[in-house]
């Protein structure tokens, strides 16, 4: 019987290997990530100025590969009434979030900054109102809306309410365009 057992062990360990990649996706960190993940270290205060796009910071956000955090971001997106302006990602008073236009950059740090510090013409600053950890969750969710770097098995499925849009997991990645600031944003 030793051979069969060896086969079993082999199969088992292969399966374990295959699923360890799942760990990152499924972890649930309730107390938030350690302070090192806070944005102070990665987000610089960039003075708003007309002209070419700001340089994008390359450090990664902590939650892009975590399904639970993305779904928490989705909950907060609804709770904090982001849909009021951005609709369900489709855009309304605010710009759409599921297309390829990123006025202030599509990198996690850019979006973090947009949420935390606000943007001219309507985007309020939520820094101090929403904890950094929750902002990172929102960032992960917003990026999942256009499938940017957020793996498909991490993105959310359909909601249990009326459907305004396709589930995030059905989105195809939309490559961000190099876009310039809109005329409205350049006015003082």
């Amino acid at each position: 019987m030793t051979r069969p057992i060896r086969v079993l062990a082999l199969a088992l360990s292969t399966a374990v290997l295959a699923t360890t990649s799942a760990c990152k996706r499924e972890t649930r960190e309730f107390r938030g990530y350690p302070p090192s993940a806070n944005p102070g270290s990665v987000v610089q205060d960039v003075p708003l100025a007309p002209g070419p796009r700001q340089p994008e910071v390359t450090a990664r956000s902590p939650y892009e590969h975590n399904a639970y955090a993305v779904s928490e971001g989705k909950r907060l997106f609804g709770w904090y009434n982001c849909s009021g302006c951005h609709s369900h990602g489709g855009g309304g008073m605010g710009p759409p979030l599921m297309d390829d236009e990123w006025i202030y950059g599509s990198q996690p740090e850019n979006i973090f900054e947009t949420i935390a510090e606000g943007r001219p013409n309507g985007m309020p600053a939520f820094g101090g109102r929403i904890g950094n950890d929750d902002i990172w969750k929102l960032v992960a969710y917003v990026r999942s809306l256009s499938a940017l770097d957020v793996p498909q098995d991490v993105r959310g499925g359909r909601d249990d309410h009326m459907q305004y849009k396709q589930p995030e997991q059905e989105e195809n990645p939309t490559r961000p365009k190099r876009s310039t600031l809109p005329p409205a944003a350049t006015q003082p």
Partner: protein
Amino acid sequence: MKREAEVPRSALHADPAEDARDLRRLERTWSPERGLWGWLTSVDHKSIARRYVATALVSFVLAGINALVMRVQLARPESHVLGPDAYNQYFTTHGTAMMFLFAVPIMEAVGIYFVPLMVGTRNVAFPRLNALGYWTFLVATIFLWASFYANVGPDAGWTAYVPLSGPQFSPGKRVDTWAQMITFTEVSALIGAVEIITTAFKQRAPGMSLNRIPLFVWAEVVTAFMILFAMSTIATASMMLAMDRLIGTHFFNPAEGGDALLWQHLFWFFGHPEVYIIFIPATGMVSAMLPAFTRRPVFGYTAIVLSLIGTGFIGFGLWVHHMFATAVPWLGSSFFTASSVMIAVPSGIQVLCWIATVWDGRPRLATPMLFILGFLVLFVIGGLTGVMIASVPFDLQMHDTFFVVAHFHYVLIGGAVFPLFGAFYYWFPKVTGRMLGERLGKWNFWLFFAGMNVTFFPMHFLGLLGMPRRVYTYSPDLGWGPLNMTATVGAFVIALSVLVFFANVARSLARGAPAGDDPWGADSLEWATASPPPPYNFRYPPVVQGRAALWSRTPDAPVVTGLRTDKPEILMTTLLDAEPESRHVHPQPTIWPLVTAIGLSVLLLSLIYTPWGLIWGAAAVSIGLIGWGWPDHHRGARLEERG
């Protein structure tokens, strides 16, 4: 095709040399190939059933460890052994594994081992399908446990109620692993059911008419029929859940016309019969063992058979009693109360018949008998609490509390695991050729019996005191601490008893007393062959002369000869009277079931991630099935060559 006369056939030879040659040929025909390849390609029902049992026992132990960890967490209020996230995975995996990976498969596995032996045939009806069933089950087992240890364990309860298990409230892939694992195990359970029905219907030994079928076989057949309906339901429901999660369907989304209660209806339409799918084979085991230990046939054969069939039917008519708290209309709930109470009648009839058997027999208190007696006591307690919670008002208070936890553990452990352990002791000599130790057996039983009651009896009171189930912690102010501590102590006693069992097995395998063909003086056909049985089970297919096949056998019992010995031939008989009807050539050992199972795994696992998995998987499965279906010609059976 060769002419009939040249074909080697089994016959009663006066010449010992000729006889030995004949036997060797038979052995060669039926033996699996050697080595790993032989292991992977075997289609022998005995080796497949042994693997089933071993795999299911691994799940039993792992899920039991889950239970121990949970009991440690609950032993004291506000302890921090497990957080809520881990606890939810622990209890969900415990329930899922115990139901889908232990209880149902092991009951079917015992059937796959013993139904062919008890009806006197050489293999199950579809041996390659049988192998496929095992491989899918193995994949499901590995899949669930690997997921659990990789933190992808399902965490929405083994009932996976929507919308909690839906896409919005269960992010990630945890519930998907649950849904796919369900589909896997159901494939295997359905295959097992088809095997058992066909084997029992078409392959019985001549003379084994319907009214002579052993009660265990009856029980397995009734169970198999229930599986056909119940498991297809849950497989469909879990596919619906998977589609809601994966491709955005709205079966369970109330805002788009879906319905959370639809899931509960479908789940419990399967879920309640599931309990009987586990329990009925256990009653069959009791009926199979009792004659040997009371030295008389089971009292009331016909009544028991009718009770089994009745249970099978009524079992599908009481699912709503799991949903009384969802506000079913009173009229409907009264119907389901009535049917839930009514199902106590067939169970009561069986219990009374067994007690009557013991009463009128000359009981011998060997370990299997102790487990039977323990079963009778525990099952009656579980049955009585079952009648209590069939009542709507009672259920409104006790639903989803520890009272219910106590109830179903009495029914499932008392009603199914006790007979199963009795069956281990009873049939271990047949399977391995060695007896299990009686001394350790008695320890095993008494520890189990005591531990069972210490663990679960206090839970009735916890429920009455208001403790809901599936809570990972509770406040010290509620006064649940002492009873919980008692239950935890009991859980460790059960664990100890299971350890004793495995020690006993290890000891017996190393140096157990040889069993001989029929150590218990039992009455059914599996004891008419060697222990362990040869690959062909019976040298000559036996002929049955009475209900207790061995006890009614005359010294000059007839046997069947004339089956070919150079090909794996089996005898097929008629459905009602088991008259010989035809000969059927069984398939040879083959790798294709394994290939197909791998294809099926590709299909189901990739479906978790993308709908395109259906296409890739279908391609993978097709490869397996083409290989499977393509004829491998032995001995020039091709029609075209014949001209």
